[in-house]
Structure formats: structure tokens, C-alpha cells
């Protein structure tokens, strides 16, 4: 099958993850992966982002497929159950708003900037080497640390399920995928 330009978006995803090791402010670019799928589902009523443009999915597909880093076993039944998918989406939302709250606290001067990346919502990994100051408020850096934590955590989870199950197992419980599918369902009913 002929490759198209969007089949190479995994390069963007990989570059994003690497950039975060050098300059945390690059984490802001990740907002593209949040807004584009939502805009596509809201305007076109499709999961065009998942279907074509998701670089993260392509990266898992490549590592688990061509590089053979996946056992290629079936995902457990409970992981594809809608209650797990919706539950994970809600959990992700709550964690996301907590991250925004922490950003607000830094913006309002109540809390100091924490130069850490929180992995799996628990482990605080020192990340000060990737911060070289900002022209803007320290809060913009706090958001970057928080957002990169979200992106790295989901990558780690995605890699784990890629190894254990099928390459793109992350797609089954990806909160963005669940959310855009819900939007599409709501849109098709109207």
C-alpha cells in the first residue's frame, strides 16, 4: 500500500518525547494531539485522527509490529469493556484537572514551580535539566511539566500494553479515542 504523508506522523510523536528531555517547554506542542482529534470529531463527526493521523498509535504499531516488541496476544476482556474505558477516561480527566489546578497555584503565586515529571500519577522524577527558564510566567513551565507528565505516563502505559498484548492496545483504552468516539456517537444521534 502506498504511504502517504500522514503515515510518517510517528516521527512527530517520537520527536516530541525526545524534545521533552531537552526543553520541557516543548511539551506545549502536545496540545495539538488534544485539540485536533476533538476538532475533527466535533466538526466532521469522525475518528479521522485515530484512523489516520495519530502518531502515537503509529509508533506503537511500528515498535510492536515491525520491531516485534509485542506478544500479539488478545487484550483481556475487562480492558475493552466500556466501563473500564469510561472509567479510565474519567480518571484521566480528574488527573488532568488536578494538573491544571497545580498550574493555577503556580500562576497565582501560592505554590513554587516544581521541576518534576510525575510518572504514572505517583512517581516524581527530577527533571530540572530540561528547564532553562522562560520568558513568560513560571506557570507556563508548570503546565509544560504537567502536560509532559501526562504524555509520558500514557506512553509508558501504551508501551506496557503493547508488549503484553497487541501493538496498538493503547487505542482500546486511549482517553482521547474514547472521548472522540462518544462525541461521534452523540453527533450521529442528532
Amino acid at each position, binding site marked *: 500500500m502506498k504511504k502517504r504523508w500522514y503515515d510518517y506522523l510517528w516521527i512527530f510523536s517520537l520527536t516530541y518525547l525526545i524534545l521533552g528531555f531537552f526543553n520541557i517547554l516543548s511539551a506545549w506542542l502536545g496540545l495539538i494531539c488534544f485539540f485536533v482529534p476533538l476538532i475533527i470529531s466535533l466538526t466532521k463527526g469522525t*475518528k*479521522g485522527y*485515530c*484512523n489516520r493521523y495519530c502518531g502515537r498509535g503509529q509508533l506503537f504499531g511500528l515498535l510492536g509490529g515491525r520491531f516485534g516488541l509485542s506478544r500479539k496476544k*488478545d487484550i483481556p476482556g475487562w480492558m475493552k469493556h466500556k466501563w473500564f*474505558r469510561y472509567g479510565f477516561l474519567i480518571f484521566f480527566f480528574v488527573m488532568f484537572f488536578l494538573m491544571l489546578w497545580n498550574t493555577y497555584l503556580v500562576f497565582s503565586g501560592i505554590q513554587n514551580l516544581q521541576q518534576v515529571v510525575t510518572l504514572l500519577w505517583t512517581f516524581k522524577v527530577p527533571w530540572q535539566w530540561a528547564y532553562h527558564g522562560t520568558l513568560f510566567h513560571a506557570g507556563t513551565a508548570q503546565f509544560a511539566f504537567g502536560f509532559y507528565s501526562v504524555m509520558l505516563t500514557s506512553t509508558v502505559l501504551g508501551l506496557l500494553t503493547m508488549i503484553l*498484548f497487541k501493538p*496498538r492496545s493503547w*487505542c482500546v483504552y486511549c482517553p482521547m479515542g474514547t472521548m472522540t468516539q462518544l462525541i461521534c456517537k452523540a453527533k450521529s444521534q442528532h
Partner: protein
Amino acid sequence: MTSIQKKRKAFVEASYCVACGCCVKVCPLGAIQIIDGITAQVSMEKCVGCGKCAKECPASVIEIREAEA
């Protein structure tokens, strides 16, 4: 006289489909479409039951079974 011909086709368990589109990408005949971002749908005319989609599906919700043609 009518003879019932059975052919192998892909069937999607729509209630569990996440509409990720992995199956669409691997289908050599372009027989699968994602309908309205909700679920994958297999064209019974085009599908030859090769099973590539079933192997690829991250949720393993595609099954290859015999269908009456």
C-alpha cells in the same frame, strides 16, 4: 436447484469496536470502513476472509467465520 455456498468473512463485534481504524489500514481489498467514528463495517461483497484485520485488531473484536454467500 440452489446450492448454498459458504464463504469465510470478517465480522465485527460492533459493541466492543473502538473505531481506531487499524483494520482499515491492513485490509488489502479496502473492504472495511469506519462508519461515523463509531464502528468498523465490513463490506460482505469485497471481503475474502483473509483474516488480516482480525489479527491486527487491538481489541480482538473481529472474527472470521463462514457466512452464507
